[in-house]
């Protein structure tokens, strides 16, 4: 199931070299730290949604889950809860949200798009209602602050905390997808759900697991974003992030038809998206063009990927026919 990630890697290297050539400070330690930090944050969300996309589903509620977790964290601190307890509870809440999504999709047989679109609205609404829509901060939680947004110094280079979260998440996700039977089942059901069921795979249970993983990683991202920004606006924090996450997953080689995807691809794709933003700022391109550029690059990336795949498939068919002759 290993998919070619050379295309996206090439794109990353191209933009990287291009920016480094035209912007001298691009390679500075400070900028690299920032790039790593933001890429890690986006990649964690992207990995989450990749699981769902591999099953052939979609999760549009990621941004709202991020907003909800960030808001409730601030609220919990304000109400004087033990912050560590709050973190555990909120991660638990994220798992619960994923479970509900999964159950609605597999047992009630609603479409993932509908379920998570409603989730998007509901969680955003709850965030705003619970917090009275007030901007809030995270005072008096220095330990969590350094856990979620601190830096580990390597000489003068500070590795941002989200990177370590990403490393752990990525390794676990890659092991799950490529080394465990459930990962294999996930690919199989994404490719052909009936075929997987006829082979004795409990497709419903696995789909639920995918949605649980996705929401859990969204919740974790919520905490990371919260402490990175030290501030939460219940109406805005995390808005549209699901689209960046989905973009990263798709650009990273996940097919929305299901059954395909690699963790490494998603990470590189998330980095490409952040790199583009960084590059737009450093090269002094108008901020108004940012969305247009990101959109075009993703489109080109996905199109190139599709073409490469088709050429390879044709070559393979040709091989088989000659082999048969």
């Amino acid at each position, binding site marked *: 199931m290993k998919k070619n990630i050379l295309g996206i890697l090439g794109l990353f290297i191209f933009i990287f070299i291009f920016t480094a050539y035209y912007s001298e400070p691009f390679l500075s330690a400070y*900028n690299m730290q920032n790039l790593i930090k933001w890429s890690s944050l986006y990649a964690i969300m992207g990995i989450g949604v990749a699981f769902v996309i591999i099953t052939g589903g979609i999760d549009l509620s990621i941004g709202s889950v991020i907003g909800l977790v960030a808001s409730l964290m601030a609220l919990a601190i304000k109400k004087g809860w033990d912050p560590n307890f709050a973190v555990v509870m909120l991660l638990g809440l994220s798992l619960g949200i994923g479970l509900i999504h999964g159950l609605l999709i597999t047992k009630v047989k609603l479409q993932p798009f509908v379920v998570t679109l409603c989730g998007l609205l509901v969680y955003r609404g709850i965030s705003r209602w619970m917090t009275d829509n007030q901007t809030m901060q995270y005072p008096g939680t220095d330990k969590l602050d350094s856990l979620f947004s601190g830096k580990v110094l390597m000489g003068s280079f500070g590795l941002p905390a989200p990177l370590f979260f990403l490393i752990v998440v990525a390794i676990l996700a890659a092991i799950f997808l490529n080394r465990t039977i459930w990962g294999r089942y996930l690919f199989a059901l994404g490719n052909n759900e009936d075929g997987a069921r006829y082979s004795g795979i409990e497709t419903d249970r696995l789909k639920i697991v995918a949605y649980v993983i996705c929401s859990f990683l969204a919740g974790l991202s919520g905490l990371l974003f919260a402490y990175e920004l030290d501030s939460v606006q219940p109406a805005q924090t995390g808005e549209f992030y699901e689209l960046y996450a989905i973009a990263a997953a798709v650009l990273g080689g996940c097919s929305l038809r299901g059954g395909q995807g690699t963790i490494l691809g998603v990470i590189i794709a998330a980095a490409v998206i952040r790199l583009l933003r960084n590059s737009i700022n450093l090269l002094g391109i108008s901020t108004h063009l940012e969305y247009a550029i990101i959109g075009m690059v993703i489109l080109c990336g996905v199109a190139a990927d599709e073409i490469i795949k088709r050429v390879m498939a044709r070559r393979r068919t040709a091989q088989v026919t000659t082999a048969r002759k």
Partner: protein
Amino acid sequence: MIKKLTMMAAAAAVFAAGCGKPSDGDGATEGGGAKPKHKIAYVTNGIDPFWDLCAAGVKQAENELGGVECEIHFPPKGLADQKSILETLLTKGIKGIAVSPIDADGQTKFLNEVASETVLITHDADAPKSNRQVYVGTDNYKAGRALGQLVKEAIPDGGEVMIFVGRLEQLNARQRRQGVIDELLDRPHQVLGQVKFDEVAKVFKGDKYTVLDTRTDNFVMDTAKSNAEDAITKHKDLACMVGLFAYNPPRCLAAIREAGKLGQIKVCGFDEDDDLLQAIKDGHAQGTISQQPWKYGYNSVKVLKAILDGDTSVIPANKFIDVGFKVVTSKNIEAFWSEKRKMAALGAKKD
């Protein structure tokens, strides 16, 4: 969005059912034949601690002046939300509205509709082409020049200055930015209302000061922060960062702190975010221009009440009530901060 609208419609329905009658009939509300309170509304342009402080002023005026009842609305997501809030208020038959228009030019027609049905004033940002009765605000151009002054104090020897702002569609943002630029380039003063604006992407080189291109973030916090980070990366000689919206200076400070350049890159700001005030106290930021937002709230209510009471003498000929601004530096930080704390507590208090 849908949820929000339905909730609001529901709220409006409940309100109409519950309060529709008493407000019409004299003396039905308070006992003893007291005059009914004017029902008015205070509408902001978004959600921000800044607006909580304004709300404090609203409440202060409500308590001190009496005879008015003011509801406060924070449109969470831009123009569309602000419009639907205003529409709901009209549906409710509100007597007076103070609004901070998000896009003055674009909203003119709609604001005129509002003004035809109720007493409309603007605060914080003006819509000069509309039929609003009066504008309660600051001369943002003048405030911008004062901010420019602060920059000059911060880096008397000159250097590169970069401006950060949420969006430049708003008149007040453009006026502030122009004030800063004009001051740093020692251009002559312009008159509010006739200010000519410079291009966004252009770099302005003066004798001492260079004003780099302005970056916008559309109120997205991570963009605000990464814009500041990227500026530090790109401009090695950056001397001063100027944040025009309340959340900008704290993001600049965070980026500077993480780059290990505290004190090296100066920060001048607008408004009174706690992080910025702390930085002023600690000497990491030069100062800030405070519009004393509670004065906006207070004055808006006061003016609306006067107009509703029939006293139009509060409206000056140029239709502009300047509540002024305060320059906050390390010299007066303590006094200012304690006042702000007092007002913040009042603003956060639930009715």
